[in-house]
């Protein structure tokens, strides 16, 4: 891990010293355990703030949009997928960013860790090879990293960066195959069960829009939520309005979402947002043979068509 961190810092220093970028966007130590956080380094001296560990959960691609600087950016697998989509959608110019790709084996789910510790106060965390050690006031516990990855990391199929200018660290083994067993089993439930699950998840939503803001692909200057003429949905926590907010946000991301999980990590109430996005990703793959954030040459699925697209859903009288 230390060699990796030194490499990242070295690259950042070189980029800044040689004037190739104005800022390097990476991660730094947080102020509380289990939190690493985004940082913006503008001079070689500051580059020693940069770190890399199992708490680097933010998707930094969200910072490249509408930024007029040349940027270096530390990006894990899912982050590079988001960057690729943003390049495709012309929200950032490829030459404007220098991508420091880092293969990633997943980030630690601090919410589940806290639940495991039954709310006992955590003082420090130390990450080791494959495990992490938690120290509290009067206890100590060592847990397996693999058992406590975020749900998005558990099903990740692109741990290695898909696009980069420089790769830091060894490539890791990818899971094989694009499958959605969680969505398939959910589809197997009855209408009523699915509706009930969805309604319960939505009932917790307080319309804070953290999910939308954490998402790198939600970059509209005026979100549909703020449209007033016409007003598509109300702004209160009315169940119908809230349900439609999530339905339509997910639909606006159809074929664009890279399933990084930033949305559900940002949600303060732990709502299962990614399930909606995964359903759409699954259908986009099945119907249009397309996966977001993989290839710069593939046109976005809803921006094109094939004469032989599926008509299974068309009504025949």
């Amino acid at each position, binding site marked *: 891990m230390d060699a990796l961190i030194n490499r990242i810092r070295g690259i950042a220093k070189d980029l800044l010293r040689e004037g190739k970028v104005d800022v390097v966007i990476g991660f730094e130590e947080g*102020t509380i355990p289990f939190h690493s956080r985004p*940082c913006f380094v503008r001079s070689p001296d500051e580059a020693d703030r940069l770190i890399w560990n199992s708490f680097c959960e*933010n998707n930094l691609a969200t910072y490249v949009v509408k930024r007029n600087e040349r940027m270096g950016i530390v990006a894990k697998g899912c982050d590079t997928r988001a960057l690729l989509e943003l390049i495709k959608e012309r929200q950032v110019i490829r030459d404007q960013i220098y991508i420091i790709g880092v293969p990633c084996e997943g980030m630690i789910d601090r919410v589940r860790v806290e639940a495991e510790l039954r709310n006992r106060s955590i003082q420090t965390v130390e990450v080791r090879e494959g495990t992490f050690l938690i120290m509290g006031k009067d206890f100590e516990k060592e847990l397996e990293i693999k058992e406590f990855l975020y749900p998005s990391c558990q099903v990740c199929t692109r741990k290695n960066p898909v696009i980069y200018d420089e790769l830091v660290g060894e490539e890791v083994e990818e899971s094989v195959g694009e499958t959605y067993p969680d969505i398939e089993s959910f589809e197997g439930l009855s209408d009523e069960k699915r509706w009930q699950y969805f309604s319960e998840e939505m009932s917790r939503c307080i319309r804070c829009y953290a999910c939308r*803001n954490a998402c790198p692909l939600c970059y509209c200057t005026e979100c549909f939520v703020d449209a007033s003429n016409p007003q598509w949905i109300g702004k*209160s926590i009315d169940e119908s309005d809230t349900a439609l907010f999530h339905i339509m946000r997910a639909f606006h991301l159809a074929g664009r979402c890279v399933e990084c999980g930033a949305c559900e990590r*940002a949600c303060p109430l732990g709502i299962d947002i990614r399930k909606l996005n995964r359903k759409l990703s699954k259908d986009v793959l099945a119907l249009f043979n397309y996966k977001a954030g993989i290839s710069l040459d593939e046109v976005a699925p809803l921006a094109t068509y094939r004469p032989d697209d599926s008509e299974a859903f068309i009504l025949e009288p």
Partner: protein
Amino acid sequence: MKAKTIRKKDISGFLDRLIQAYRVYAPVMQNGYFLFKTIKSGSEASLNYHNTKMSPKDILFPQSEVLFRYQLDKPGVEIDMPAQDERNLVIFGIRPCDVRGIQALDNVFSKNPKDPYFEERRSKTVIVGLGCKETHNGCFCTTVGGGPCADDGSDLFLIDIGDEYLIRIISDKGEVLLKEEDLPDAETQKITAAAEVAEKAQEALRPCVEVQGSEDILTQRFNDPVWDVISEKCIGCGVCTYLCPTCHCFDICDEAVNKEGKGIRIWDSCQYPLFTRLASGLNPRDTVGKRMRQRIMHKFVYFPDEQGMLGCTGCGRCVIECPVNLDIREVLNILLRTGAAR
């Protein structure tokens, strides 16, 4: 001050009896975290928690509140006010930082002009505070003039002394709650034990920044580019304001379908880009730095100026829940010391 004691295992029964006459809000565990909810039985509540995910401000100042409804199908307009629950309400097991939050809201909604919706509930509210034996890593109440066992603002105040709670009786309203209960007066040694718990918790939470004099320093630094540097990683998600016990910005919307409609008040956040956008398109706070400045200045300059108390209670929710770990304690440290910004 009068005090009684109650055994921890008797709390559930006490709540059961309270529920007969009051709407009782207590911390309830669901989906892995705690929230204040109305309980139907004492067993639903748990006092074995650090703090709730959302502050209890939504009991008195809900996220969405119908202000009035109207009908247009008869001649003229018929306006209906929403029905209110007649019963008094008890907020049970609320932490001192959140009680402080309610005091902040009192300054906003209970002074002239009074907000009738807030007042209607607030006037019926009895607060049973719960002191903190230990704090978690986001807490900083002692930095902003509060304390883990500060009982002002509560009507009754519980302190954990082992198998029992000491109940400090702060007000008459609080005393009424205990009327039907046959609780023993607190023995001197227990009162002392409680004071020790309070002192120990207070000592353990050192202030992390000197807030005295912050008004002047922050005002002087109004145009300092440091605001942009501090807030660069902010994604404008609004979680800090929604979870904050003192934040109270709101929007008012009208919704109508054909001939009936309603006016609703909903939470809003100064951290949203469109918060200050005017109809002309001009936006006085069009950058993250300006919005962050507003948040800090409101809490540490404008609010104290107008209301005589800080607009931050040190509960730490914004620290813990911020997706990018933008730590208000760190921000204050940078601003109030003249050292270089991070």
